[in-house]
């Protein structure tokens, strides 16, 4: 009898799990959206067109040229920082290290951190920062480029505020958002990089997103 209840219990558990798996909520899609009509098999259908991250060109901490194409096929997290930042950046990168530790060996995941102070943060300075932060390899890129291009990308594409302001510590206003981007270059999540709980949510959401895009590609 005991064995029977045990077996029943296991079956119940199993079905409960299965049920949950089918119910897993997908992550929302952020950004401005548009509709476009296209012709499929002779019929006109209306499609949502989501905002995507446009083309860019930067260099990473190794001096390699990095474009938006370098991120094709990757789920990635982006943030904005500068190496001499006395305020929120240390908290952000203390938290981002957890994301890095979770996913550094996952082949279709990356982290990119854009410096908003390219004058000071040269390739050499970024490399030194990376070494001291304890990151290596190519799963976390620190990107440097034209200031206007970085600021534009932040405000118009990732939709986060970045600007210079001599009145604030370190001379820049910026928010500590971590922005999650899917393989179609759409925005799938915003997380306050200074808040440990939100970063824990990001760590879970990355897993969800990796699973989602993988199945999409398999279809």
């Amino acid at each position, binding site marked *: 009898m005991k064995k029977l209840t045990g077996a029943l219990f296991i079956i119940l558990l199993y079905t409960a799990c299965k049920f949950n798996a089918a119910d897993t909520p997908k992550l929302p899609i952020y950004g401005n959206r548009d509709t476009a009509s296209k012709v499929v098999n002779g019929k006109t259908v209306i499609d949502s067109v989501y905002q995507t991250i446009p083309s860019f060109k930067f260099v990473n901490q190794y001096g390699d040229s990095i474009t938006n194409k370098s991120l094709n096929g990757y789920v990635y997290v982006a943030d904005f920082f500068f190496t*001499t930042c*006395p*305020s*929120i950046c*240390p*908290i952000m*990168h*203390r938290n981002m*290290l957890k994301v890095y530790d979770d996913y550094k060996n996952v082949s279709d995941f990356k982290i990119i951190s854009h410096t908003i102070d390219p004058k000071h943060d040269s390739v050499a300075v970024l490399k030194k*920062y990376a*070494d*001291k*932060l*304890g990151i290596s390899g190519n799963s976390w890129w620190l990107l440097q480029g034209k200031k206007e291009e970085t600021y534009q990308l932040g405000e118009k594409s990732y939709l986060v505020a970045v600007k210079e302001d001599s009145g604030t*510590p370190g001379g820049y206003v910026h928010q500590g958002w971590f922005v999650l981007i899917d393989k179609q270059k759409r925005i799938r999540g915003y997380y306050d990089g*200074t808040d440990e709980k939100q970063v824990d949510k990001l760590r879970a959401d990355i897993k969800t997103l990796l699973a989602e895009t993988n199945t999409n590609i398999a279809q």
Partner: protein
Amino acid sequence: MKLRVIGAVAILLSVIIASCQSEEQQEFQRYYNGGKIIYEQRCQNCHSAKGEGLSNLIPPLTDATYLKTNKAALACLVKYGIKETIITINGKSYEGAMPATDLAPVDIAKVLTYVTNSFGNKMGIVTSEQIDKDLLKCK
């Protein structure tokens, strides 16, 4: 009779000593609690809630030997910041920069009381008078 008097005096003395101690204890607690709030606002972003720092960029505040040997210099570090100095903490060297602060001496005393009695440190109270003296010797 004599014994009774001695007994009473002894009891009185121990009560006085005990109350003195608790006053000291209270003073310590006041500094420590105030220091915790200052730490959270001014230091925690860099040195972290547990005093562990950030990789090789920002040192932890857990090196009891460093803190003890450099006790008298800590006020200067907090007030004027650190620039282009290599500091060895727990056997690792750090060459980052720490910004200067506009904290009043009493607040420096409080935050250092918090730091030197947290994260595994136990160095007792740092008084405002001590900070005044230490600040005179800043280089």
